[in-house]
């Protein structure tokens, strides 16, 4: 056979546009799904980790104080003090424990049995009737600064409410009634931290599947030498990339479905916006994550390095800088600028809006646009950088 003939045969058998590529892609997809099913670590990252994270954040982590054990020391019990203490008993924020004296209260605080002390002094009733009003002493365990701030806030709140109620009840000095501030909380009316943590967590979970898992399985192919064999076949680079994107996209949406189901049915997080918007946004975010995962594995080609890099540049930022736990608006300016480079921050914004406020297009559209741009950049660079070569 002359070289010309060889060329022709090769072309007719290999270069069928469309038809031939489909068979190759089908083969790659089947391979990838079989590998996912048989590799316990893929299943662990795609399904076990999300469930664990959801349970942990859904049940374990709560950013609002509830039933805080509060020691109450009353030096001179009388009608005024019992009325004030009574107002605490009705609050769901506190579990008041009446202590015989300051010494016992301090010991209990040191051993961690109570998280704060409310001290009503000897002259409580006398001062209450004076022009200054009675002072109350609040001592708070400052180990957890956030918690401490909340406890003292609640106590102050309870104090001013009681004062207000008392003056109404006594009917005296009607003109002296302090202005009542009435709080109304929007978008998370029950102020449950779970309701904004769980939707944000979905972004973390999707990062895990989209970036970390994808980077690792791609790097594994380089490490085990299977990529070399793959590249030496007539497969096209587009097919290799699609052969990774499609399975892990599907897996990512699977993780998404699992997370949304769990947050809705298990954690009773309200879903005010539409499911459709949620999944479109998730798809956009997955493309950006997959793009980053592919790019990482193309650069490092080593499972360990790819895994570490993926955790540092995708997973941790999704956790810390996405607005999932810490509010972006309260971050210092340079850090706030960094959050714009993190795909998860756009997705978290969409997630929290769709879950808690509904389909607010002014929020959803700009964030979705950012995700589209990031997907295009990362997938574009990956496609450009991925060569059918070993160097």
């Amino acid at each position: 056979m002359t070289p010309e003939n060889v060329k022709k045969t090769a072309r007719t058998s290999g270069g069928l546009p469309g038809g031939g590529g489909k068979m190759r892609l089908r083969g790659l997809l089947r391979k990838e799904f079989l590998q996912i099913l048989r590799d316990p670590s893929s299943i662990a990252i795609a399904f076990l980790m999300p469930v664990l994270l959801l349970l942990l954040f859904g049940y374990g982590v709560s950013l609002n104080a509830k039933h805080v054990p509060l020691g109450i020391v009353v030096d001179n019990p009388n009608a005024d003090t019992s009325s004030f203490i009574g107002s605490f008993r009705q609050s769901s924020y506190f579990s008041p424990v009446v202590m015989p004296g300051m010494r016992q209260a301090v010991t209990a605080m040191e051993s961690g049995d109570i998280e704060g002390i409310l001290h009503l002094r000897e002259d409580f009733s006398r001062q209450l009737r004076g022009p200054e009003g009675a002072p109350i002493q609040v001592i708070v365990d400052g180990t957890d600064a956030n918690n401490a701030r909340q406890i003292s806030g609640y106590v102050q709140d309870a104090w001013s409410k009681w004062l207000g109620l008392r003056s109404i009840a006594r009917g005296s000095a009607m003109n002296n009634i302090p202005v009542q501030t009435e709080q109304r909380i929007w978008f998370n009316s029950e102020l449950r931290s779970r309701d904004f943590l769980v939707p944000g967590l979905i972004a973390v979970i999707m990062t895990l599947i989209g970036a970390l898992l994808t980077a690792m399985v791609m790097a594994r192919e380089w490490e085990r030498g299977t990529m070399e064999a793959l590249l030496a076949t007539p497969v096209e680079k587009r097919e290799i990339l699609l052969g990774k994107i499609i399975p892990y996209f599907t897996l990512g949406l699977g993780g998404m479905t699992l997370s949304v189901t769990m947050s809705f049915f298990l954690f009773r997080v309200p879903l005010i916006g539409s499911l459709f918007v949620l999944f479109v946004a998730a798809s956009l975010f997955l493309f950006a994550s997959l793009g980053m995962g592919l790019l990482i594995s193309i650069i490092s080609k080593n499972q360990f390095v790819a895994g570490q890099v993926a955790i540092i540049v995708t997973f941790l930022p999704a956790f810390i800088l996405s607005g999932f736990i810490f509010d972006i608006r309260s971050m210092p300016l340079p850090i706030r600028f960094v959050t714009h480079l993190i795909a998860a921050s756009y997705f978290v914004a969409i997630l929290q809006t769709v879950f808690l406020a509904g389909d607010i297009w002014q929020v959803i559209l700009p964030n979705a646009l950012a995700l589209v741009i990031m997907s295009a950049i990362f997938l574009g660079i990956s496609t450009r950088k991925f060569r059918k070569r070993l160097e």
Partner: protein
Amino acid sequence: MPGPGQSMHTVATEDSVIILEGVSKYFVTGKRKIAALQNVDMFVRRGIITGLIGPDGAGKTTLMRMSTGLLAPDAGKITILGIDATSDSLLMEASIGYMPQRFGLYEDLTVMENMKLYADLHEVPEELRPPRFEELLHMTGLGPFISRLAGRLSGGMKQKLGLACTLVRPPQLLLLDEPTVGVDPVSRRELWSIVYRLVREEGMSVLLSTAYLDEAERCNDVILFHEGRLLGQGPPESFSEPMQGHTYSVSVPGMKNRVLQGDLLRCPDVTDAVVQGDRVRLVMEGTVPPEPAALLPSAKNMSLTPVRPRFEDAFISILRRSRPVSLKTADEGIVTAAHTGTSDDHIIEVKNVQRKFGDFYAVKRITFSVKKGEVFGLLGANGAGKSTTFRMLCGLLPPSAGNLSVAGVDLRKAPAAARAHIGYMSQKFSLYGNLSVRENLRFFGSTYGLSGRTLRENIQWALERFDLGDHEEITSAELPLGHKQRLAMACALMHNPDILFLDEPTSGVDPIARREFWHRINTLAERGVTVMVTTHFMEEAEYCDSLAVMSAGEILALGTPAEIKAKAVSADLPEPTMEDAFISLISDNAPAQKTS
């Protein structure tokens, strides 16, 4: 001496499936630019088996990868089947089959799933698959294992599956990168018969690379590479023919072959001396038959008979022109101090030792003992249990059952105490790549508690004894493989151990470095150091005083090389080689192993 192979070197013709013209390829590591291939002109003819022969670092894999379009040359042109491999690689890849060194199998896919995947990638139409699969499964003997995961196959079976996957669509050109390395001799023979059949029945052209020099003689055409340069091309005979009249077989009654070999190598005009079976193979520089008395005056009754030259003789003689063998042994070594010669004391005792990993027995009830000052070899293919046995002996891995004692210390009770007596050189050499030669020596010396003057003296000794003085400030990652091996051995000897464990020490290094290496081992053994070595090179077994032949975790035979070979003597094989012996041992034990 005429240049071997050069006479046959003709120009590339229309009938060439691979043509390389002025091809160079460089890799950059750190600040250094290493030439993997330098200005190579060569061609591979259609319809025959061409062997790409050379030690590690010769450029074989680079050449293979460039021929598949996986690497682009820095200079020159590569034409595969009339197609430019660099610019038109997708078109070219449709007509070739390539099996990389690690076979490219998906370990969590079954045999059949792997074959289906490659059939999809090569776009084999559905209707053509059943007959082709059947044919390949029959050819490779994998029929009974189609639903087994590839990761659960033995090394030899993986190799055959890798081959089957590259053959799902019959390629015109088959490229096999070191398909036989580390695979047991039985599987090696089977692979060769498959390749012969492909060439004969399907008219395939095959380019096969190997580091085993004896495989050169199985090829129709040989391309010899060393350190990125083409040394010659031609049929294997064209290499060995010019060596006619240079080769002899020598033996001296009452003299150990190892000693005889060492003495011969130091004689003038000797190109090569190597232990081969019960005799020593001698290659002379000239064609004048040497006078036994003149050669070695001390040796009495030397028998010297001319023998047919082989490929390896030619390779050594070509290499020798550019690089002399270094055989520094006469100087006083630190190692001599604590040891006296051979004795009958057993320094290593292994009784009924087992090692389980999960429900898999890597080592099954093995028993053997090693005498002081002996060179003891563990021979077997990858996965036979050699490395596991080794790690148990070094106290790195506790046995699941049985007793182990090394230098009189029970390893189950005091592994640390036993470890002070041993030096261990692992398969991958375990050097710190970013430390210099001197820093590596200092580090390994200090881990064994050396310090101050002793440490300085031992470093100096190692640099001199192992010819590393010129390289002492170079980081070990930048050293050539042969130097790395010397450095690793020097590190293992820094604390003057009684026993030296060497795990696959010669794998991949060139034949000259191997000779130097065995020479050092012999010297150590003469001075009373016990040496345990694992190898999958059958011919290296001849250097050992005693051998354990291992397969699938069991010891198939135990004894001197001569005793083991004697077991394979039959009417057809009056003088079996170590490989013949190994194959006959495996086939005798095969039914027993399958039932267990």
